[in-house]
């Protein structure tokens, strides 16, 4: 045990550096803003509407990927097929590209061209709309949920499915009663990662929809037009709300695990 001491001290010291680096700016932000200013900012209509819009659109993006991405994740986890590795790499591309470039790509696809015309025909426009914000958030954060669900499904032994089916459950019933509940934690973690990644999305959103303003755009707008004193309270409010929601979801999940 005595010999371990030096080893532990080095690791604690190194860990503390990055831990403090990650925490201090957030704490400093709250100290600078102060509770009164934070409370007042949260009561501003423009701020709470912007925060609500951010939470809502990111949540819608998560819902859409739950419906479409979870089946894809299951297929990737359970089956080997031609081009699977390529498809998996392709799904990770949005995480790697510059977010402004992703915004341009979305704009080119959904505002102009045949796909854009198709959606316009259905009455769906993406430029400066909530739908535009949602696709921007979804494009850059969907891989978090898909990959999380894929890992979750891989951890569920295929024998559970075989067993459920010998007991009379159909393929679909087996998926909902056995596979999904046992992959729940990974899926929920992936969904939370996607949702929180969506909350912070700025680069792609600002290109496709400056208005209505989501919180990151509002922070940027206030910073460029009015300076730090006006943008910091909005930033602190956004962090407070999103961390609270994040912790609440984790708490509920742990309670009912």
């Amino acid at each position, binding site marked *: 045990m005595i010999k371990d001491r030096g080893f532990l001290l080095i690791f604690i010291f190194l860990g503390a550096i990055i831990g403090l680096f990650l925490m201090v700016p957030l704490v400093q932000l709250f100290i600078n803003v102060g509770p009164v200013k934070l409370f007042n900012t949260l009561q501003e209509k423009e701020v709470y509407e912007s925060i609500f819009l951010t939470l809502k659109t990111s949540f819608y993006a998560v819902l859409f990927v739950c419906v479409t991405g979870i089946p894809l994740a299951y297929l990737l986890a359970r089956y080997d097929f031609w081009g699977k590795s390529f498809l998996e790499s392709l799904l990770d591309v949005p995480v790697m590209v510059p977010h402004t470039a992703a915004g341009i790509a979305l704009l080119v696809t959904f505002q102009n061209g045949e796909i854009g015309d198709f959606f316009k025909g259905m009455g769906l426009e993406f430029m400066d709309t909530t739908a535009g914000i949602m696709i921007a958030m979804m494009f850059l954060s969907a891989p978090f949920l898909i990959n999380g669900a894929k890992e979750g499904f891989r951890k569920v*032994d295929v*024998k*559970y499915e*075989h*067993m*459920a*089916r*010998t*007991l*009379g*459950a*159909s*393929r679909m*019933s087996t998926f909902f*009663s*056995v596979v999904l*509940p*046992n992959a*729940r934690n990974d899926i929920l973690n992936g969904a939370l990662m996607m949702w929180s990644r969506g909350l912070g999305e700025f680069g792609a959103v600002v290109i496709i929809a400056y208005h209505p303003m989501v919180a990151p755009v509002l922070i940027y707008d206030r910073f460029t037009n009015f300076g730090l004193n006006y943008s910091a309270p909005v930033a602190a409010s956004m962090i407070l709300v999103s961390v609270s929601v994040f912790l609440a979801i984790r708490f509920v999940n742990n309670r009912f695990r």
Partner: protein
Amino acid sequence: MLKVENLSVQKGDFSLKKLSFEVEKNSYFVILGKTGSGKTMLLESIAGINKIEGKLFFEQDEMSTFPPEKRGFGFVYQDFVLFPNMSVKENILFAARYKKIEDADALFADIINFLKIEHLLERKITHLSGGEKQRVAMARAIYSRPKLLLLDEPLSAIDPTFRNAIMKSLKEIVKRYDTTIIHVTHNFREASYLADNIAVMMDGKILEQGIANDVLNHPKSIEVAKFLGFKNIFPASMLEDTYKDRVFSVDPNAILFSHTPSHNEYCFRCHIEEVMGISDHYKVFAKIEEHTFFAKVPKHMFNKLALEEDTQCYLCIKRRDAVFI
């Protein structure tokens, strides 16, 4: 009842090759084979989990293309595969969500009483021991009222002290719940206790099948005999000139040594090559021409005969102890 005709399955490098056998209603059928011989794959194929070539009939209905949920066969895996998101009771009652169980309440009460699991019902499956998991997995499979119950090495994860009691229960299940069991194992003692009929499987093929007693005591091939633990397998022409193409085997405990030949038995002059003392007996390796016999001699007999390495004596086998293969 169950008739399998030329069943073939290919998975990666391994395949089941044209297996054919029949299992009678209300019988206990054991498939015996080494690890990796394809036993689990065969059970999964019968259950409808693997796509097969060939035909599978159950009570005259062809089921070769039926999905598992339409076959009505119960399954118990080696590692039990209890659903971790459900309690013990929910696991047992799982089948009732998807099909109508006849006399469900009475059946449930009877099963938990028979398998002695009443005290476990509200527990999470992560809090069960190996033996408890096995009983819950059996209960879940029986509760689905299977026409055929497929058991994949159900005793391998069980503490040896509980094995006999569980084997007794397994044997009782056939009559009590009016079902038929196919049980795969690598343990031939387990097979000899449980089986009415046995099939011996190796490398994806069934080498021999028949009434348990016949297969276990009179194997028809050297491969099966070796797998079943038969020792001292030598050409039968050593014993009788008429047995030209056959071999015989003799149990090491049935080999007798003497300093004089006996005319009522097969007796050969032998050279004792090696003697190893074990707690209550001696292992003796004796050579007759190019064949080395292995015998187990009780300590008192060994001392009486004063057997020593590098000496000559007679090795005798009673006619009834020679098993011809």
